[in-house]
């Protein structure tokens, strides 16, 4: 009886294993399709989503049976950032392909062996398609573990309908003109600018501060100690902006509130990146066609410097499988080719670190390209240059500065203690 049972068990086991063996033999005869998982943030309502999805489909069709890229949608950016951090901390790449906002904080990811180093993969032809400055900014200790893809300039937005209503017919070209225009707006009961100290980066005010600091200290101002006179003067200027030329709720206000004031016409001057240009609620405003984009008038000796940042760098998981690494490189070459980038730019109006001949036709998007080209040079904003922790301290202490709880010198000293040297 016992022997019979054992025999049945062995037979059952053989029956289970046979199909597996047969399948293995069948597969060894044909080339295995490589599947690449892409944790993409350009999904859902994102303006880049349709073009990105079409490109992935095009690539999959061209490489049918060899490579298949599968998009894993990441619609919530904050949750996505947490996923990237925790996955890398747990010793796993979040996906085969993913993006990061490159700054000194995320540059820590370069220490991970889980990320592919593109330095050896980037041939001259491919390298030539990228903006050299962006490639250099993405290189840490000789490693290029993320490729610059989406970039952004952070100019100043003027609601010219509001400006014209107080007799200002052109964007201010000098500091004097700027304050004069702001005084006129204020006298007419319009808060001139949308400032804010809330959220973890005091976003719109951080952009203003970056413009001031760069104009006062030059494009390399972020290399100086934060106690440098350029920063102290910039702190005094941003304090004046919040106290005299913004809405009463600026201290503690978040980005939603700051943008909301501009959209509602309560403020006339705003600051944000090109992604804001594609918003439906902006297009619905009565002043949409009057919006002018430009730099901030020089408040120091450095003129025509535009504030910019690397908005999205693309990373890939390193792999022991050479075929898989090659498949990733093939896809990224396709995705970052000038023709692919032109397609994404056309639908989204976003700006890229890859050189293309594309020029937008949309008035607002075109102004971003014009403002970028008009600048003599670009410089990073505070967050892109000094990282998340320094920016958090900036945002927290900005409220105290605006409420006169601390002086500009104390403000700069407090931010300075957070900078790692």
């Amino acid at each position, binding site marked *: 009886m016992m022997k019979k049972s054992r025999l049945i068990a062995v037979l059952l086991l053989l029956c289970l294993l046979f199909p597996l063996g047969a399948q293995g033999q069948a597969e060894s005869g044909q080339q295995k399709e490589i599947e690449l998982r892409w944790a993409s943030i350009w999904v859902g309502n994102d303006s880049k989503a349709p073009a990105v999805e079409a490109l992935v489909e095009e690539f999959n069709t061209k490489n049918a049976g060899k490579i298949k890229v599968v998009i894993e949608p990441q619609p919530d950016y904050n949750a996505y950032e947490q996923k990237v951090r925790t996955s890398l901390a747990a010793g796993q790449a979040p996906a085969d392909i993913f993006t990061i906002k490159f700054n000194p904080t995320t540059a820590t990811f370069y*220490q991970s062996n889980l990320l592919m180093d593109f330095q050896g993969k980037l041939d001259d032809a491919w390298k030539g398609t990228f903006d050299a400055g962006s490639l250099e900014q993405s290189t840490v200790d000789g490693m290029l573990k993320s490729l610059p893809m989406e970039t952004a300039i952070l100019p100043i937005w003027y609601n010219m309908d509001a400006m014209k209503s107080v007799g200002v017919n052109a964007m201010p070209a000098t500091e004097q003109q700027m304050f004069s225009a702001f005084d006129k707006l204020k006298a007419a009961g319009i808060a001139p600018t949308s400032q804010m100290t809330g959220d973890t980066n005091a976003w719109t005010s951080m952009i203003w501060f970056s413009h001031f600091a760069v104009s006062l200290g030059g494009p390399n101002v972020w290399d100086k100690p934060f106690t440098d006179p350029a920063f102290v003067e910039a702190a005094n200027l941003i304090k004046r902006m919040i106290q005299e030329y913004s809405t*009463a709720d600026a201290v*503690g206000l978040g980005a939603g509130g700051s943008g909301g004031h501009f959209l509602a016409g309560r403020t006339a001057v705003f600051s944000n990146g090109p992604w804001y240009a594609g918003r439906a609620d902006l297009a619905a405003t009565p002043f949409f066609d009057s919006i002018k984009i430009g730099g901030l008038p020089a408040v120091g000796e450095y003129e025509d410097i535009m504030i910019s940042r690397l908005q999205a760098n693309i990373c890939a998981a390193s792999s022991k499988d050479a075929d898989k690494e090659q498949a990733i490189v093939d896809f990224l070459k396709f995705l970052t080719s000038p023709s692919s980038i032109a397609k994404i730019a056309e639908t989204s109006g976003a700006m890229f670190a890859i050189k293309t001949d594309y020029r937008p036709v949309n008035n607002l998007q075109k102004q971003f390209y014009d403002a970028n080209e008009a600048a003599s040079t670009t410089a990073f904003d505070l967050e892109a240059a000094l990282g998340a*922790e320094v920016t958090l301290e900036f945002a927290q202490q900005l*409220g*105290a500065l605006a409420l006169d*709880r601390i002086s500009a010198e104390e403000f700069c000293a407090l931010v300075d203690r957070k900078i790692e040297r």
Partner: protein
Amino acid sequence: MQAVGTRNRWIWSARILFLLPVSLLFFFFFIYPFFFTVFTSFTSWRGIGSMKFNGVKNYAKLIADPTFQKALGNNIVWALSQGLIQVPLACLVAMILVRKPFGWRGLRTIYYLPNVISTVALAMVWVAIYNVDGPLNAILADLFGMEKHNWLGNPDTALFAVIFQTVIYIGYFMIVLLASAMNIPRSLYEAAEIDGASTLVQEINITLPMLRGTLITTMTLAMAYGMRHFEATFLMTGGGPAYATTTMGIDLYLKMDALRYSEASTSGVFLIIMGTLVITLLRKLFGSSDPMSEMAQ
């Protein structure tokens, strides 16, 4: 004899089998993370690369950090507010509702309603209420001619504004206390009435002592929540302005955000220690006896 032995073995096997799933979950999702957190708090680690042992440096840095000191102070204010304002308020309402006044069922539902609404939604509503151009300033201006005030943007009022919108939601503790109060034997009140005791005297001498055990439990829960408070403040002020509303939970989160994993672990360990201290202190102060359960025995 052998049958008894086999039965005992079966009973023990069954006990282990029943305990195994929950024990495994407890080990993997509490014991292991707890010891991992304690371990990493003694290292220098940014979530990537190898950990370097650095002794108690993180603890020394944390204690000397003015932001953390502010967070600790705020958490103590939170714990006291929840334990000494929210729970007594809940107890007062429970004591009124237990006497079943007109519409008590409706009131019970209304008081509990905010507890079924998401914290995010409530926080957003209160951000609008506290806005410079919001309804609170409008009402105060109409009634007292007060000037507009930036409640969440002023370090002097931000903390109390956030605490206020939390402590007024007494529903959860009210329901717990009400359930307990409803179990107090009616005979005690009847005897007191025969002796001529007023309602107030009955509440002080019967209801409150009988609720002692439940009150200690609710206070412990409320204060422990106050020590680990995070959501509402993070949503309403992000810990600002100038760290005026920051808490240990926010400090921990922001350290994680800046990839300071080992320092975040140190904040986490501190949070656990503070929570344990609060519970121990409450037990020492009020004891753990419960007249209701003693009566039941």
